[in-house]
């Protein structure tokens, strides 16, 4: 299967270099208004995660694993982690990012970040 390109964009302040994701109209550090757009690059490192068993409306499954990860170029983002209950996730482990359906809404797939643990 051909992997889809990850469609998130982070924003690097042209004045101070601070990286933002999601978008802010002014830099959280220096209030600059000009940004370079940065695509996340490389693998990602797992910063924190949880496995949620009381899911919100719209999710018809027993649980959902969600985490925050940092890409090799510093971009940090939340995504779904593709690991079943028996998988021993650990902070700092390496994840392979993908752009996949993360929920189904109004008859359409909604795409987002998914992470596959690779050790």
């Amino acid at each position, binding site marked *: 299967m051909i992997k889809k390109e990850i469609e998130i964009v982070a924003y690097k302040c042209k004045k101070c270099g601070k990286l933002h994701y999601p978008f802010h109209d002014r830099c959280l550090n220096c209030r600059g208004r000009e940004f370079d757009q940065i695509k996340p690059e490389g693998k990602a490192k797992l*910063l*924190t995660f949880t496995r949620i068993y*009381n899911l919100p409306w719209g999710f018809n499954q027993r649980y*959902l694993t*969600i985490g925050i990860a940092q890409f090799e170029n510093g971009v*940090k983002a*939340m995504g779904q982690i593709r690991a079943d209950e028996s998988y021993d996730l650990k902070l700092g482990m390496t994840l392979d990012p993908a752009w996949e359906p993360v*929920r189904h809404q109004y008859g359409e797939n909604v795409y*987002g970040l998914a992470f596959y643990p690779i050790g």
Partner: protein
Amino acid sequence: MRDVAVIGVGMIQFGRRDEDSLMDMLAYASLHALDDAGLGDQSVDAIYVANMAAGMFQHQVSIASSLADRLSLLPAPADTIENGPASGGSAVKNGLLAVASGYYDTVLVVGGEKMREVTGWRATDVVATMTHPTTEYVYGVTLPGMAGMFTRLYMEKYGVTREMLVAVAIKNQGMGGLNPFAHVEMAITKEGIYEDHASIVNNPVVADPLHLYDACPVSDGAAALILCPLEMAKKFKQTPILIAGFGQATDTQTLQERDDPTDLKAVTIASHKALEMAKLKPSDIHVAELHDAFTILEIAESEHIGFFKKGEGGKAALAGKTRLGGQIPINLSGGLKARGHPVGATGVAQVVDIVHQLRHDLPKERQVKNAQTGLTVNFGGFGNNVLSFVLRRIEA
């Protein structure tokens, strides 16, 4: 600016209130507060109504206007205040500033939410809409999920253990059992939720590492206050309780953008501003109502306020320092954990509970002896909008 006092309080029991509409609950709590202040047949100068999501839960908006009409408070100006789970704190702040400025003399502040009208599935979704729509909500993250990720980091950094979280749950649920206004009245034991084999069934994981008894219930409820200038307070029948300080601060909407996601900066700033305005130190506070939507938050907030050093809050909870008679009694109402968390009501209910403590009108099993000062923390979003109040007893 004028000093502002609480001269009336009212609350209804939190829980599942199928028989009452949101407007019923707001009206009952308001009438209790008006009666408590001795204003039973009079009006007020303004009304602030805290509510997070009646538009989604009840398909009803403009509730402040409806309440003014229902309570025959017309033509008093009325505003609905929405600030997520900190809506209650924001309404108290707006009432406080309105009276302090000299523009209004008597103000009704009431907060309420009716969350049990929808299924738990829907309620979880409604609450999750406070997360970032395209970088958090879309993935199915919930507030317990955010708290789970925070807890994992806090455990890793500060050595908080499940046993410490369990100590908070047992304390607060035990206090809830003594509070006639609490949603959860069932005491729990360490064996039942942690040690015993059956705890796997009794206390399942909801968002690991958090378990069922680490989380507050989904509740219906309402709470209300009457405020007036301190100089007028002696005309009313109750011991006036001064709002001696308040603080509010915001933080990034997403956890991932915080340099250190375990650092609840908005809690630190809000509580320290409130203490500074009241000219008090954390050690001067006799009783606190903290926003324990999850047990970890009581521990983390107790450290960020300065009751304990970072990494000591969990140990303090385990050692009983936050119980009645301890160094700083926290959540003697049962907290959100047991009193319940009708989101729009919580920030107001916390002030109501501190007012009772400072009036010395609680039964001895919940009353801090001779309490003179109290502090609240009302935590919005996942710490991205926090309010804190310091209250002080004024002797007649």
